[in-house]
Structure formats: C-alpha cells, structure tokens
C-alpha cells in the first residue's frame, strides 16, 4: 500500500494553548480513516494542519511521500505559493459548506479548476458536470446555492472539492449542520466515494458511518491519539474508559450486533 498522507509528531499551539500534542498518522491510498473525539479535542485543528489551513507549530507532513516545506536548522519553513499548490491537491469539505453564494452551482465547481489549475472553461465545465452527476445534482447546475437544501449544498461542496482531482479528501463534521433527514444523502455520497477508492480522512460523529465505512478509527483525546483500530473492534470494545464514555454519549446510535 502506498502512503498518501503521513503526519509525524505534529504539534499545534494557539498562543499558550497547546491543542495538538504530538500526533503520528499515516493514511494509505484508498483508505478511509475516521477521527472521533469530543468537542475541543483538536479534531478540526488536526485536519486543518494536514492542508495547512493552520500552520503546524512543529512536526512534519508528507503528501505522497514528499515532505511539505523546507527544514532549516530543525525548524520547518513554508512558502505561501507552495502551500496554495498543496491545498489544491487536497480536498476539504466543511461543516458550513462555504459555497460561494454569488456563483451558480456549476460555477462553484468550476472556479478552482479554472483559477487555480488553469483549466479551460469548457474542460472545467465538463469535469464539473461529471462531479455533479457523481453526487446526484447535475440538474441543479444552474441554480444558486441559496436555493438548495443543506444536504444538496454539502454535496455541491463535495463535488467542488472532487473537481480538483484531489489526492485525499478531508471532511470536517460535514453532516453536523444538517437537519437529521438530510444527513443520509451526504453520508451516501461519502460512502460511495470511499467505495470508489478515494483516500479520506473524516471527522464525524456518525458512528454508523465509522462502523460501516471506515478502515480505521482514531480516537483523539486532549490533543493526542488515545486509541486506534479497526472500527468493528474499537467501537465495540474500547480499551480506555475515556473512549467508552465518549461512545456512551453517542448512545443514540445502536451498533449492529
């Protein structure tokens, strides 16, 4: 298996608050890794360090085997142009969609392709349509995002990220802002992606998704990975009290026996 993302001894502090306290993780090609953890444990920060929406305080990130940034006397330095190029290779989907409201759905999906990747408009349009079809929204191409439901918006956001042909996709609680009846359609798109072999790193509270779709589940606690394992094992028989408590807090979801 080839590794896509490798995180080595990742630390991140905001002023005096140490949020990530040394994270190591390798995500292999085609793998779906789910990151669990209670609110404030550092899940978003970790995800955002992978595509450098946040700059790590220390530690190293490799994409496709290449170290991001330059090491100078033990400290990493990054050029903004390098980081922009890196971000274009990593898809990210947010809790609050962050679609561009002044553009139609298809324009949203074309924007990065044209502006960042320099694709021609016709090529971008074709690829955008293909991705919209993939998430089942081809017929909404000419609508503005304001006219879509939350679930549809999130699927457009997924298509927008996919259109960049990312090497890995990051999902940060993408169903948390949705009405319960709209969660399913988004999870379905994600599951389909996973089955098609996309490499995915997902923060989610949907234990059912973790159980059925993930290859590996991590439990993040207070900025460190406390447990890690196959979903069928770790979700049913957690080793630590901390994770057991966390799972009990999610008792709404009943794991299949």
């Amino acid at each position, binding site marked *: 298996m080839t590794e896509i993302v490798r995180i080595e001894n990742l630390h991140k502090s905001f002023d005096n608050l140490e949020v990530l306290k040394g994270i190591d993780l390798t995500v292999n090609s085609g793998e779906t890794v789910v990151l669990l953890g209670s609110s404030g444990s550092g899940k978003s920060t970790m995800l955002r360090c992978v595509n450098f929406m946040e700059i790590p305080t220390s530690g190293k990130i490799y994409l496709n085997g290449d170290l991001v940034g330059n090491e100078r006397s033990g400290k990493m330095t990054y050029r*903004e142009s390098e980081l922009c190029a890196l971000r274009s290779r990593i898809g990210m989907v947010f809790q*609050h969609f962050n679609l561009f409201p002044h553009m139609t759905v298809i324009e949203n999906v074309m924007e990065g392709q044209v502006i960042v990747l320099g694709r021609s408009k016709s090529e971008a349009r074709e690829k955008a349509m293909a991705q919209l079809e993939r998430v089942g929204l081809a017929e909404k191409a000419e609508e503005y995002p304001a006219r879509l439901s939350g679930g549809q918006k999130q699927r457009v956001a997924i298509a927008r990220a996919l259109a960049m042909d990312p090497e890995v996709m990051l999902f940060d609680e993408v169903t948390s802002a949705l009405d319960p009846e709209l969660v399913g359609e988004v999870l379905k798109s994600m599951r389909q992606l996973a089955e098609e072999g996309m490499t995915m790193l997902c923060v989610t509270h949907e234990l059912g998704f973790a159980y059925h779709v993930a290859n590996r589940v991590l439990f993040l606690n207070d900025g460190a990975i406390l447990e890690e394992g196959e979903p069928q094992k770790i979700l049913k028989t957690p080793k630590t009290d901390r994770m057991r408590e966390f799972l009990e807090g999610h008792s709404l979801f009943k794991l299949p026996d």
Partner: protein
Amino acid sequence: MEWNFLAVLNDIDLLFLGLVNTLKVTGLALFFGVPLGLVLALSRLSTFKPLSAVAGFIVEFFRTTPPLVQLFWFFFALPILIDVSMTPLIAAVVTFSIQSSAFFAEIFRSGIQSIDKGQWEGAKAIGMTYSQSLSRIILPQAVKRMIPAFMERSIELLKTTTLVSTVAYADLMFQANELAQKTFRPLEVYTIVAVIYLVLIFLCSQFSIWVEHRLAKSGEGTVR
C-alpha cells in the same frame, strides 16, 4: 423683488464650464480615491501590525481633519516643503483623492469584514491565493453590500468639491460667484446652481438604485 433669469441664461455657458470642472474633480478623485481606499483598507486589515497601524493613522487623519484645511495644506503648504508647483486642479484632485480614499477605505473594510470567514476558507481550501480569494470571492460579495455607502460617500464628495472655489479653481461654485458678480443676479444664479446640484445628486442616487436592483436580480442575495 422679481426673478429675471434672462441675464443669467445668456451666460449659462459659464456655469456649464463650471459643471464640467466640478465633474472633472469629482471623477478624478473617485478614479484615484477608490483604488487607494482599497489599498488602505487591505493594509489596515493586514496582520502585519506596522502596516495596519500606518494605514489606520492615514485613514483617521484624513477622516477627522477638515477638508478645507487639507486643501489649503496641499495648495499652499506642500509647495513650500517640496519643490512642486501646485495648480488648483492638482491640489484639488490630490486632496479629494486622499480624503475620499480614507472614507472609501472604511467602506471597503466594513464590506470585507461583513463577509463570512468561511468564504475565505472555502477559497483557500481549493488552493486560491490571497489575491485570488479577494478578487474572485470576497470583493464581488462585499462590493454589493457597499454600494449604498459608496454612493452616499460619492455624493458627499461631489458636495465637498465646492471648496475648490476657494483656491480659484473654476468649478461650478466658482463660476457661479463670477456670474453673480457679473450679472448682479445672485438669487437667480445660486438658485440655478442649487437646482443643478439637486439634479446631479438625484441622478446619482437613481443610478445607485438601478445598480442595486440589477445586482439583486443577477442572483441569490447573500445568504449562504
């Protein structure tokens, strides 16, 4: 007292010339002031503290000092400091470009800040640079919200340019003074001038309303 517009209308081309000059100063001040305002706003929003502090000082300075003082300073004082020859037009354009840029800076700044932080994030996540995010994602949304304040400020600028008559620039107000003295008909002259300003400003606000409607129609509103 009886009204007699005839004497004034005979020399109406004097006022017309003044109107053209007024529009010239206003137009040039907008031409330079708007981009300069954007630069000041972005500087002020910068996370690089010294830049932000300097921009903040410039903006506050030109917003708080009287425009007449600024005009006199550029016209009479600056040529003493550095060896430049100031014409009334240059002094007027420099003054009102900088003065209005300070106000436009604040309009840009609040417009940009009114855009949800998630928009920057969405743009950044697909690999856009700062300037791409700004020009493609943030400003198109922010400018839409800025139009009423922008128009109000432009109208304010048009009115403030009457000050240039004090440095003998032949704007509408200056020409009106000339004409009033020439014809001994201040009542008629200043009435006409007031009506001209009224019509100008009315046209500006109609234009602004038209632009707002057009933009509203071309999509969406600004809800997420």
